[in-house]
């Protein structure tokens, strides 16, 4: 899914870059209130997680450049705004330090991998979460289904980008059919893995799943048990 250098022409690259920068700027503004919140370390951890997940360490790689994308998982765990930023950081580091995707195609790649899951996957997940039963399975199905749709959307968008500005000398229909072929399988795996991860995390640590925020029972904060009058210490 990572587009290499020279795969699409310069106008497409520039347009992708413009959309990516605008999207990142919006997300930076939306997350400006998080300073040292506990979310930032979690975001960094998620970033490290996706960095390793995208490396061919997980032995479920389908096709040669098919791997899990994780965008919807990031958005459902961290919220759409921070999710975009996390996947952006990962995509940049992959392009710069691992040659995964071209540096000039970073804009297009950020649109496909970071912005699409947050813009398409997250709203869908939020909608489904409202319709489905308020249980771990409900949340998991919502996230998993949204992940499937987000991956297919990204693959379609990739085909569209190539149709508009393809420059690699391959017929467009070959690119579209091979991408869709590989990514329909990836989408299924991605959906299942996203759903199962969300289910486990929601069961163990519901506070980590952003998608489930509205589900949390609003208990009154327990009064801190400060003893106003300490027991006199009998030190005789």
């Amino acid at each position, binding site marked *: 899914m990572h587009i290499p250098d020279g795969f699409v022409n310069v106008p497409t690259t520039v347009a992708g870059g413009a959309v990516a920068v605008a999207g990142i700027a919006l997300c930076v503004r939306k997350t400006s209130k998080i300073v040292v919140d506990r979310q930032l370390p979690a975001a*960094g951890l998620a970033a*490290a997680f996706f960095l390793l997940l995208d490396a061919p360490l997980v032995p479920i790689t389908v096709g040669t450049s098919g791997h899990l994308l994780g965008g919807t998982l990031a958005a459902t765990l961290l919220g759409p705004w921070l999710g975009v930023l996390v996947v952006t950081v990962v995509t940049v580091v992959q392009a710069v*330090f691992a040659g995964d995707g*071209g540096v000039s195609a970073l804009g297009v790649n950020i649109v496909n991998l970071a912005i699409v899951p947050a813009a398409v996957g997250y709203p869908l997940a939020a909608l489904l979460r409202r319709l489905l039963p308020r249980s771990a399975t409900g949340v998991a199905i919502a996230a998993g289904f949204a992940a499937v749709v987000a991956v297919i959307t990204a693959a379609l968008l990739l085909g569209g980008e190539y149709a508009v500005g393809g420059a690699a000398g*391959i017929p467009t229909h070959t690119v579209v059919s091979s991408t869709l072929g590989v990514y329909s399988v990836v989408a299924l795996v991605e959906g299942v893995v996203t759903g199962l991860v969300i289910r486990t995390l929601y069961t*163990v640590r519901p506070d980590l799943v952003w998608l489930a925020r509205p589900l949390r029972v609003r208990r009154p904060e327990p009064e801190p048990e400060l003893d106003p009058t300490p027991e006199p210490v009998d030190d005789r």
Partner: protein
Amino acid sequence: MSGAAHQPGAELLIPADTPVHRMPPAPKVVATVVFVLAVAFSPPRIFWPFLWYGLLLTIAIVLAQLPIRTLLRRLVVEIPFLLFALLLPFIGGAPHVHVLGVALSEHGLQAAAMIGLKASFGLLATGVLAASTSLPDVISGLEQLKLPRVLTTVASFMVRYTEMLLEEFNRLRTARACRGGDPRWLWQARDVASCLSALFLRSLERGERVHLAMLSRGFTGTPPAALTAPLPARPVWAAASVLPVLAIAGSLTARVLA
């Protein structure tokens, strides 16, 4: 935390005392990014500029006294991502050339070579940066360049957690292998997913402890002032810009001549 003591990315750093190593991180980062972009925007199907980029890279490598074979060996990280480029000569359109009786698309061959060259040269350039600058320095350079704080903080946490995550992953993998687990097919996705969530939880809990330790040592979200030195003076920038400007010149010349 055993992992906290040694620096992340230290295995990429090749310490030496050269002008390249001593240069402050911000101009180095900008120079690398500009160089990589110049290479990436090199026009398609024209191969001579890569000789020029190679010469410029060699100058940087010699100045930094880096072992060139080590840098070349590090290019293996790109192999998994370039495998798909091998398909291009087979699925590309006409005209075809015949090599050993196999019809290969000419455009596909050129596209594959271009993708490989651009990725390799880009990686060599970032390899020089990583070999002469520690990762925390790269991130503090990005901070000096006024990149949004959310991005640099997430990036620095990512760098810190990557190694920890790998350790946890290896522990989990050992434990799984001991119990005869070896998931590799679609219907075993549940096993992969439960391992992933266990990995995420374990690492997050360790990460939370690291974060609490950082807070208790006075971490406020910004690195200490001592680490964010002011941006270096103009002569440093001028020195850093020589190679990238020459690379841009080569890239533009190729585009104009094309």
